[in-house]
Each structure stands twice: as C-alpha cells, then as structure tokens.
C-alpha cells in the first residue's frame, strides 16, 4: 500500500529542455489513474470534514472563513502568477498559512538553476522504444515472478530428488544390515542345533555306558 500526499494545484511550472521521462498508458489505465485518485481524495476530504464536524460539536463556533480553510485546504481560486516557480513548502508536514500560500522564487534565482538548454525534445521516428509502457513494466514484473517461481520449483525438485536418493540409500543400507543380522541369527541357530545334537549323542553314550557298566559294577561289589 503506497501512501501519497496530494499537493496543491499549481498553474504553471518552469522547466528546462532536457528530455522528460514519459510513460505510455492505455486510455483505460489513464481513466483509472485519474478516477482512483479523485475517489480517494474525495474519501479523504469527506473523512476530514466528518472529523472537523465532530470537533465543532464540542468546540466553540469559529468564524466561517477559518472553518472553511481548515476543512478545505485545497483552494481552487488560489491566485498564482503565470510566471514563476512554486517551490515545495519548507516543511510540508506542518500545515500553516505560510505553507499553503505559494512562495514565489525571484526570476534571477530561477534562471540560475536552469540547465543549459539542449534544444527541443525530439521524438524519433519509432517512438515506442523511447517509452516505458505500463504493460511492459507489468509484463517484466510478471516475467520476473515466473522466472523466480520456476527457479524455486527447479530448486525444490532438485532438493526433493536429492532427499529421495539419500533416503533410498539409507533404506538400502538398513535392508542390508537387516539381512546380515538375519544371516548371523541363522548361523547362531545352526550352531545351537549342532551343539544340541552333540549333547544328545553324549547323553546317549553316557546312558549306554551306564547300562553296560552297571552289572559289572554289581558283580564286582559282590566279589568283595
């Protein structure tokens, strides 16, 4: 949102002969430019008038001409000489009669500030190249935005692909680790099974040995 201060109407300005900046604006855009400004200015004036009326309800009445000046700082009938330059107010933030009234700069000083004339403005045969059009500006902005969005999408895609690749690698590594662990577990099981078989054989051998040796031991005991 741009904030602007509308300035007093001026009747004439003195300028040098340097080429001016120009903008080629469609008729419809020009109408909107003027209409929007006028509408916002009217809103601003209505708001000011409304606020002043509220103040007038509680303050003692003031002389009508003073009141009008307060409400309508824009006076269309301000007399400004045709010759001369109206410099900006010294302190535009402070509204005072001195600021509202035009200050005329002496002609001699004005002349000194002028740039040496360089001749009349020459419009080339193909004037389009000399103009900035709003359409071109908006198109350039749009193009910039599209480029920025495309760059962002491209970067996002690259980052996403990198993330996917990295995640895939991590998943593969995890699967491989799981496979290794499974193989190690299976080896442990096999070892345990082999040990159990050896234990069974030893146990059976012990039983057989006991069966075989028990009668002999009994006979040996009796012989004593």
């Amino acid at each position, binding site marked *: 949102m741009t904030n602007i201060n*509308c300035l007093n109407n001026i009747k004439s*300005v003195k300028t040098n002969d340097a080429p001016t900046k120009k903008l080629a*604006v469609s*008729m419809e855009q020009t109408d909107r430019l003027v209409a929007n400004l006028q509408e916002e200015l009217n809103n601003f004036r209505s708001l000011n008038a409304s606020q002043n009326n509220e103040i007038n309800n509680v303050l003692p009445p003031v002389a009508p001409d003073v009141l009008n000046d307060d409400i309508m700082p824009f006076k269309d009938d301000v007399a400004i000489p045709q010759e001369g330059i109206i410099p900006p107010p010294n302190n535009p933030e402070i509204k005072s009669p001195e600021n509202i009234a035009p200050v005329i700069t002496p002609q001699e000083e004005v002349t000194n*500030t002028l740039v040496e004339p360089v001749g009349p403005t020459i419009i080339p045969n193909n004037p389009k190249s000399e103009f900035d059009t709003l359409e071109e500006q908006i198109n350039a902005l749009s193009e910039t935005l599209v480029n920025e969005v495309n760059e962002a999408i491209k970067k996002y895609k690259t980052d996403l692909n990198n993330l996917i690749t990295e995640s895939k690698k991590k998943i593969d590594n995890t699967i491989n680790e799981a496979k290794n662990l499974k193989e190690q577990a299976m080896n442990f099981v096999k070892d345990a099974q082999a040990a159990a078989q050896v234990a069974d054989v030893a146990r059976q051998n012990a039983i057989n040995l006991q069966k075989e040796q028990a009668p002999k031991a009994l006979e040996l005991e009796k012989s004593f």
Partner: protein
Amino acid sequence: MNEKISIIKPSGETEEKKVISHFKTMDDDKPNIKGIPILIVDKNEINNGNKVLEFYWEKEGVYQPINDEAAWGEVKSIVVDIIKKNFKIVGED
C-alpha cells in the same frame, strides 16, 4: 485532477497541458522520491494507441525531468499502485 498547467521552457515557449496528478510520498520504501513533489501531465500525444504521460520532479526549486533511474522506477511503481487502487491519501499540503 483536471487542472490545466502551463509548462514554461527556457526559450519562453509556453505549452498548456492537463495535470493528471501532483503528489509526493513520505513512504520510507521510496527513498529516492520521498518528500519530493511529483507532477504528472498529459503530453497530448498518442503512442501506439496509448496516451503519453510526462513526469517531472521538483529539484532545487525547478520542476524538471526525472533523471534518476532509481527515482523513476519508484515513480512508476506508484503509478501502477494508483491504477491498481493500491494506495491511500494520507495528507494534504
């Protein structure tokens, strides 16, 4: 604004043009034109079906062409804002 204004050149030649707008901005995000009166006038020319507007800024007591590209860019952005109704009048001088 539909006031007429007389543009007086150093040669003494006078040209009457319609004022489109006369404003200034105090926004800090427009450092190159902050507090400087900007005058937009109708050049009374048509270019490729478009109306040609002329821009001046007040420098050293004289309204003169905006010879600063950064300032010119800020002025154009304000014009775009006004056309898009993305602006507010905050005070009058």
